[in-house]
């Protein structure tokens, strides 16, 4: 029985069959339909959806297999979430080598989207820390892929949007920490130039950097707050440390009028002025530092039933004036929401054939869906990104045109040869024009 499903952005809505997997020894279902693995469904758009086809629900594959607390090598099933990994490893002095802005994603999803985080300028993407994984293909074959064995398939699967087969388990390398606290600094900046200066100064001495930028303040485009941080050293370990586990939840869809240009402007104004000094430095727990939005369960309901589109692009460093242009256009449109994020990507190459991160400046923000004008705005941003040789992030996309996708990822055809014939997704059919 097909049921209606949506991903985190709540757009599009699709009908699909769900086939839950419980054991890593399970074989793939016998079906004429196309199949696709889905973990926690935190991708914003349709990379994790499979309209009128079948989804392999992998959350049942949530067992650890082995953890070596001396070397930090973790071996677990693909449906284990990053939150579960942190709960296990942080008390033993280990941390995720790379983490996205939510810990409610599975390790399979983190590999399939080759996710990045606040340390991209130093550490590169999540895929770089994947030592090996097992790929179950529709032929029934189980291939153990690594940088030494089935190398091409290994590279295709990292960032391969789940199209090369089912990852049943993976082995990753964690990184040593001394304590869960992060030494953080937040610094107000007034425009994009100031952001770039701060980024340049910080990238060398700070492991984690990112900025929030106000996309609504038309008088002064690009003002914002720059966040930077490092894990604390063994000499800075505090005697007492309080961990708050308070969670809010948005229990129902908020009506559309609550998020309007005025309320968004007000939020951004308050957010910018939350700190009285230009620069504030303190110790923070890793949880609110990396995952501020995870404290609000179901924050996607804030945008109501119609949902929202998240837009994340990267443009080459040399063309960073394009970021100002894009920000201008967004501010003028008045369509954006809060939560706009700006960050410099570093030079560390992504291991995946189809990985999104590359050297440049990345901008990510939410747009509540307000009909055709929202889509038109994003289409015109796509064109700007294409002009300067940038790219848009598939894992956050729900509306990119085939022409633009294929321009951003000219390697898509080379990648296609690694797609398992029984695997497909709504996203892939859309951007390749398949029906």
């Amino acid at each position, binding site marked *: 029985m097909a049921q209606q499903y949506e991903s985190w952005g709540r757009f599009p809505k699709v009908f699909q069959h769900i086939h*839950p997997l419980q*054991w890593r*020894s399970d074989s793939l279902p016998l079906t004429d339909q196309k199949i696709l693995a889905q973990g926690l469904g935190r991708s914003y758009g349709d990379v994790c959806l499979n309209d009128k086809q079948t989804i392999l629900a992998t959350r*049942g594959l949530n*067992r650890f*297999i082995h*953890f070596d607390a001396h070397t930090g090598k973790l071996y677990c099933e693909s449906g284990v979430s990053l939150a579960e990994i942190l709960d*296990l490893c942080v008390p033993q002095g280990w941390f995720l080598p790379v983490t996205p802005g939510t810990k409610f994603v599975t390790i399979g999803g983190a590999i399939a989207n080759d996710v990045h985080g606040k340390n991209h300028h130093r550490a590169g993407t999540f895929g770089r820390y994947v030592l090996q994984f097992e790929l179950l293909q529709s032929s029934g074959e189980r291939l153990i892929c690594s940088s030494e064995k089935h190398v091409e398939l290994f590279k295709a699967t990292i960032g391969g949007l789940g199209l090369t087969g089912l990852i049943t388990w993976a082995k990753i390398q964690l990184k040593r920490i001394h304590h869960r606290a992060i030494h953080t600094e937040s610094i107000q900046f007034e425009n994009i130039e100031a952001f770039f200066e701060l980024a340049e100064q910080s990238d060398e001495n700070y492991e984690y950097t990112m900025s929030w930028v106000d996309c609504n303040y038309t008088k002064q485009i690009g003002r914002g707050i720059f966040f930077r941080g490092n894990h604390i050293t063994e000499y800075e370990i505090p005697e007492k440390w309080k961990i708050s586990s308070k969670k809010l939840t948005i229990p129902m869809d908020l009506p559309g009028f609550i998020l309007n240009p005025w309320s968004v402007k007000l939020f951004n104004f308050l957010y910018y002025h939350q700190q009285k000094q230009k620069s504030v430095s303190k110790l923070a727990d890793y949880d609110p530092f990396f995952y501020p939005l995870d404290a609000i369960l179901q924050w996607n309901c804030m945008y109501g039933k119609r949902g929202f589109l998240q837009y994340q692009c990267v443009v080459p460093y040399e063309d960073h004036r394009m970021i100002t242009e894009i920000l201008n256009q967004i501010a003028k449109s008045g369509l954006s929401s809060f939560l706009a994020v700006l960050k410099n990507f570093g030079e560390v190459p992504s291991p995946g054939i189809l990985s999104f991160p590359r050297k440049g400046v990345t901008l990510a923000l939410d747009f509540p869906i307000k009909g055709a004008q929202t889509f038109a705005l994003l289409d015109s941003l796509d064109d700007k990104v294409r002009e300067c040789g940038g790219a848009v992030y598939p894992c956050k996309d729900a509306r990119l045109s085939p022409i633009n996708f294929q321009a951003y990822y000219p390697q898509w055809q080379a990648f296609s040869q690694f797609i398992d014939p029984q695997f497909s997704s709504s996203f892939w059919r859309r951007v390749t024009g398949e029906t």
Partner: protein
Amino acid sequence: MRKVLIIGATSAIAQETAKIYAQQQAAFFLVARNQEKLAAIADDLKVRGATQVDYHAMDINELDQHSTVIEQAAACLTGLNTVLIAHGTLDDQKVCEQNFAKTELALKTNFLSVVSLLTDLANRFEKQRYGCIAVISSVAGDRGRQSNYIYGTAKGALNLFLQGLRNRLHRHNICVLTIKPGFVDSPMTASFKKGLLWAKPEIIAKGIVKAIDKRKNEVYLPWFWWGIMFIISNIPEFIFKRMKL
């Protein structure tokens, strides 16, 4: 240290309960049908903090094996103080109505096999004078309903048996816990359409651990099923028989 014997260890509720105990550095002896699945769970529990995990694969309906397995568990863990009986099947009511062999098998798996296990365990615990025996029953055992009365019969009989056992073992300092989960979103119910009343196995597991800690007699999980079953149990039979529940 908690030394736990889990029968039906591959069930979703049992796995989630074991995860909680693993974090408390418990030692485990797991019993279920499938060797490979048991191995996967054992690895997981060890990573999560279990001090020891041993397991044995068997069909629980081989009743004559029970005392050997229990003996093996007690030897492996050098004694037992917690037992969780979590195995069971949810058979198709319509098929059972037409086929006594199926009904008989359902009653054997869901009731008689538990009685066989508890006969051995009760005597062992009675002698040692400490420990807790927790058994997963179901709200289905509270009243016979046309849609599910074979399963309900097995669970209802089990509830009575546990009441008697509790009465017998109380003076020997043994806690006997009857766990009555409502609708649980697990592989057992994969084909059902889920609504508001459905709970995740991890929620049920938390409730089980809490009830064992508090040495409760009976627990509905989640708690609101107590209210639902109170109403269902108190509908007069002359009305109830006309209802389609």
